[in-house]
């Protein structure tokens, strides 16, 4: 089996092996992979970012979901070579720059949204993308956001709560950021010397 994409600048370094470059969680990565290497395996075994999990390898469970150029996709249904040049966010890249948990991660902790934790990375990435698109979901919309991910432990009850809680945390953080910016700009009375 061989892949062929001559326009994307992928070079075939030796028979069957391709040099690709990815930006994973903000860091550029150069990897040499066989054409058939799944993006999930490339992330887990070549880059050792094992937070992305593989639960079925046929695209149904959603545990392997990552963000490719900001869009949630199944990394088990994408060849690594197809992702050449893409910006990829995995669960390891969801935390804030200062290392604190993101709103979605924090909401899972607050709401007991995980038990064994195996499906959790796929939920976290899916919800992160879902809230970027719809920052204020109703309970029904929250269920829709996670509608394609399987969890065998939680019965989803607390995951739905976590989606709503994450939206709340994001709003609070947004308000705080706004307030901070206003203060910095010296526009409020309290900010005066």
């Amino acid at each position: 089996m061989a892949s062929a994409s001559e326009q994307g600048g992928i070079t075939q370094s030796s028979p069957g092996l391709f040099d690709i470059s990815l930006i994973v969680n903000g860091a550029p990565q150069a990897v040499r992979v066989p054409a058939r290497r799944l993006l999930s395996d490339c992330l887990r075994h070549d880059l050792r970012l094992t937070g992305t999990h593989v639960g079925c390898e046929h695209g149904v469970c959603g545990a392997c979901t990552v963000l490719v150029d900001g869009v949630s996709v199944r990394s088990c249904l994408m060849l690594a070579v197809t992702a050449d040049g893409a910006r990829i966010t995995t669960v390891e890249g969801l935390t804030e720059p200062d290392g604190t948990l993101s709103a979605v991660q924090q909401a899972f902790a607050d709401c007991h949204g995980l038990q064994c934790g195996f499906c959790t990375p796929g939920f976290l990435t899916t919800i992160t993308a879902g809230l970027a698109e719809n920052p204020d979901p109703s309970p029904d919309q929250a269920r829709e956001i996670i509608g394609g991910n399987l969890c065998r432990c939680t019965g989803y009850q607390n995951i739905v709560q976590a989606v709503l809680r994450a939206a709340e945390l994001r709003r609070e953080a947004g308000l705080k950021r706004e307030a901070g910016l206003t203060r910095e700009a010296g526009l409020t009375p309290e900010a005066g010397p």
Partner: protein
Amino acid sequence: MTAMFGEPIARLEDDRLLRGNGAYLDDLGHDALAAAFVRSPHAHARVLGVDVADALDVDGLVAIYTYEDLPGRIAEPLPLLIPHPALTHGRTGYPLASDEVNYVGEPVVMVIARDRYLAEDAAERIMVDYEPLPAVVGVDAALAAEHLVHPDVPGNVAGHLVQSNGDAAAAIAAAPRTLELHLYIERSASTPLEGRGVLARWDTESRRLRIWTSTQTSTGVRAAVAAKLELDLADVDVITPDVGGGFGVKIVHPWPEEVLVPWAARLLRQPVKFTEDRIEHFVASAHERGQRHQVRVGFDDDGRLLGLDVRFWHDNGAYIPYGLIVPIITSTQLLGPYKPGAYRVEFSSLYTNTVIVTPYRGAGRPQGVFVMERTMDAIAAALGLDRTVVRERNFIQPDEMPYDQGLIFQDGRPLIYDSGDYPAVLARLKALAGWDGFEAERAAAAEQGRRLGIGLACYVEGTGVGPYEGAHVVVETSGKVKVATGLTTQGQGHQTVFAQIVADELGVPIGDIEVVTGDTRAFGYAVGTFASRAAVMSGSAVALAARAARAKAIRVAAAALEASPDDLEITGGIVQIKGDPESGIAIGTVAVLSNPLRYAFDEAAQAATQFAGGDIGKPPVADGDEPGIEGREYFSPLRSTFASGMHAVVVETDPLTAEIRIVRYCVVHDCGRLINPRIVEGQIHGGVAQGVGGALYERMAYDETGQLQNASFMDFLMPYVSEVPAGIEIDHLETPSPLNPLGIKGAGEAGVIPGAAVFAAAIEDAEGIAITSMPISPSDLFELRLSRRGDRAV
């Protein structure tokens, strides 16, 4: 300091898992060789030969093994883990099939290669020559015994057991009313999101074996693998990494792969890893639930049970490594919260050419509850009584506890319920579910053309079975508290609840406590995680060990403070004279004092060198004493403790499409004292979702040749969020168990147990059609409507 026990605190294990820093089996061993297996495509066949020639030139191939290559005890059948006198014809498989295969998916050849892709390339090119034999699929074919799974097992019967209490036949014969029911439940499976997996390293220098495996019992795997590989127990470490769910399937051990991978690692002197893929998990791990039942019941005009006679046939698959546990549980736990009058139960466990059967969350109880609750509903229907009334009239009353059902339970001990208040649970459930107001609700819905039904189901669950668990608690000089227990964790939040127990018992901040489970290096004696036993067994052991450590800390501090131990307390990690914080010594300092050292390697140690003080007339470590603030205790209860609960569900069935929608789901649950209500509710949520799956979606669709037709997440319909109730209403009752120091009962399995029963009842109530077989799909319901004469919809 606030008590931690009973607080719904957030879990301590979450931070790591939320950052993607969990370490599940396949996240380990990046340098390991990969194992893949050639598995039987036939349900039943003779293996005539294996031709590996075409595979040999696959790049990256390291080794290929067949049965012929297996030495010594590895070439013997896998152990029959739980023998029983009634299990007269126990058969287990070989790690690799010798001359016969008995289910699709049975391992025949092991391939080791540089990575999994290459191992599968080689496996694909290996030719196995089979002579197909007739396959026995399903309970009916097994019972008919036209063909045999194992030629030396007559009638396909692995085991046969009868238990009775009183003369059921006579009681039924004399009863004013009788009913007969035929009830069937299909197979489902645990289906954790992470499949099985094992990684092994043989240390050529120390000649020791280290195994990581996704298991529910690390000590079990250790003993089994040591025996198979003829190693001393002391030379084998088994470590349970993060486990992506178990639900029963991972209690079986050793799996063929758990023997073969360590063996190959030792032989090849390289680490080897096997990661099960999803399809393999469907065809090569374990299923449960397939049983056919026949019930005869005698009762009086008030609905009181007089005699109950149950016969059932259990499909145990190709082999029976886990013994008769599942049907024994069905046969005993089906009695639920009721006094059955005279009772007789008889079952046969039958071989079929399908995947083996082992406990799946609930473990035989969902079938038993289905049988009993369908019977209760049938009695109510026959007498025109409210279904709750019939149940109330048969309940064991709180003042009758402890109640002896006169049978032997799965642990070989008498089936004696220790505590419970069933009338109170039912009263709460009726209130929660709006039972008494339901007829008005139904009528209002009917006016809009909607069809509603309500069902309820009751269960009693023996939890916390023995024989024992142990725990070790040690206070470090930093004040950190290390806790270890041997049983394993698959997401139940053990780190959190055990830390809550230790925080209270020892009097230290919860943030200073670290809990390790399932690592034989940290604690070598353990049984495993199953039967809702972790909190009861290890929780109790942890409490006892923490109490021992506390007593020691008090004693050492009392000497230092020249106070009476009775006057001391430990709070916030400080040992002090009660109510006098000024007097306090940090518990870490007490640990320093407890360990008279010779060498002063840091400040804490400096304070504790044997030259630092003490009575020169006494030895530094007194006779019978030990250095350190530690506790190591074991908990071994007399019997299981019995949790209970009742569920109700309201469903809406579409009069045209026969689709089944859940309107509301209510749970009242009594697991004794709650350590962490949030975690208990999480367990219930997950159990209910699995109950929904088992009742409405999941089945193992074998065709008559023994091919599993739905071995994928596309066709095995595990519920998504869209299939589970949008909310689960939960109420707790807490009747403490008298059998353990914390008054707790198990909570892990409860949520799933009444699933099939409660949905069958609600659908029957909505449709007016007897529901006797589960699961039920819209297509099944449509066919039932068709076959009913004078149907109102079709």
